[in-house]
């Protein structure tokens, strides 16, 4: 496919790797923040193309993985309400809550449907006027604009039986939290599709305040290698900066129309992140004007105190402090078919990726 095959050219991959071996001298640790990058890194065997002293570690950019367990508990409680259809991206179906999962609830008769877009949920709301349709809205800045656009569509067509449970999150706060916690990171391979929306200025504080480089990268093997080259060059010259490698999609200013829609519909709030705890200004909730689409306000749900799965070290993995094989449950008690923690569920979760690519 156009814009894919050209960036998977094996000759180019080899030369980029050779070039990197030539220019890189110092030990350097780069965090690939985004779960889609973790997936590409393993799928294309990027670790084997890097000199030994370049360490790539996975970060907190898998939305399913960082979503706290009480979000799943809320979704499960909503699924148990009568006359309600839960609509969700496929990734969330198997994520364990404190005592159940959406998959188990579905087996018990709850109406839970996998959708590809919020617009399918809106169509359902029109098709089933007697039912309540709840859309589970998770994801970073990439996924927030479609949710915002969907809410605006619901608003303008006066749809009443539709609401969202929002766990939309913002990328820079967890990156800052990791640096402040002292996790040894020299540079960030930043998520390409987040910056497609936000642009790059939101990362400026990272080189300015913390002297670490940021390169917004595409997802093909040559993209990733080129981005690593850019980070190594910044690092060796001691000139940390924010740069875009993924120029065919990312503009420095992002997608202004999409940002305006987010701004119209959502406001910033704090949120619990798995592994990172409560981070101020790291998540989005519906503004007052659209609060009638907020499932948490619309329905009375009561929850027991959440509890995390025993033995799961997903939180440490999301901070780059452990790798999946260091979890005693990995591949034994915890597998993609039978996940104990969220990091094994999502196809972008580090545990799931390690399991599939046996690394």
């Amino acid at each position, binding site marked *: 496919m156009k*814009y894919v095959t050209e960036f998977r050219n094996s000759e180019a991959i080899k030369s980029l790797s050779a070039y990197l071996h030539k220019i890189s001298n110092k030990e350097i640790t780069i965090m690939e923040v985004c779960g*889609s990058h973790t997936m590409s890194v393993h799928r294309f065997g990027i670790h084997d193309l890097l000199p030994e002293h370049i360490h790539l570690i996975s970060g907190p950019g898998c939305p*399913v993985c960082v979503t706290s367990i009480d979000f799943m508990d809320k979704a499960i409680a909503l699924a148990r309400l009568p006359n309600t259809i839960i609509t969700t991206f496929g990734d969330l179906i198997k994520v364990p809550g404190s005592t159940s999962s959406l998959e188990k609830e579905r087996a018990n008769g709850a109406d839970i449907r996998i959708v590809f*877009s919020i617009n399918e949920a809106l169509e359902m709301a029109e098709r089933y006027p007697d039912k309540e349709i709840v859309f589970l809205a998770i994801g970073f800045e*990439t996924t927030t604009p*479609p949710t915002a656009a969907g809410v605006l569509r619901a608003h303008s067509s006066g749809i009443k039986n539709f609401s969202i449970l929002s766990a939309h999150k913002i990328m820079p706060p967890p990156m800052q939290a990791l640096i402040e916690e002292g996790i040894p990171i020299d540079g960030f391979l930043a998520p390409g*599709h987040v910056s497609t929306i936000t642009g790059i200025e939101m990362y400026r504080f990272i080189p300015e305040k913390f002297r670490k480089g940021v390169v917004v990268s595409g997802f093909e093997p040559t993209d990733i290698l*080129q981005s690593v080259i850019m980070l190594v060059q910044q690092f060796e010259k001691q000139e940390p900066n924010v740069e875009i490698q993924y120029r065919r*999609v990312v503009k420095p200013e992002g997608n202004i129309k999409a940002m305006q829609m987010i701004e119209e519909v959502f406001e910033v709030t704090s949120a619990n992140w798995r592994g990172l705890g409560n981070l101020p200004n790291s998540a989005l909730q519906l503004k007052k004007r659209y609060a009638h689409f907020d499932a948490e306000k619309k329905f009375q749900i009561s929850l027991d105190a959440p509890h995390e799965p025993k033995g799961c070290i997903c939180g440490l993995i999301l901070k780059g402090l452990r790798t999946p094989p260091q979890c005693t449950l990995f591949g034994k008690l915890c597998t993609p078919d039978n996940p104990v923690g969220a990091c094994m569920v999502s196809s972008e979760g580090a545990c799931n990726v390690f399991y599939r690519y046996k690394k």
Partner: protein
Amino acid sequence: MCLSIPAKVEEIKGNEAIVNLSGNKLKIALDLLDEVNIGEYVLVHAGYAIQKIDEHEAEETLRLIRMLEEEEK
């Protein structure tokens, strides 16, 4: 989750477009972009086009990669 896929716009009706995604036709929403034209490539995420793909910049990136390749030879 943040996976987004390049697809070619084949039809446009108001706020919606039909795109070709490796041979599969898919209906997507255009709410997040101004001025999309038939024949252009867009990046599709969760049923919405989130950005146009800049052909010129794609070529430029490939050119840079080829330059590094040359340096290696």
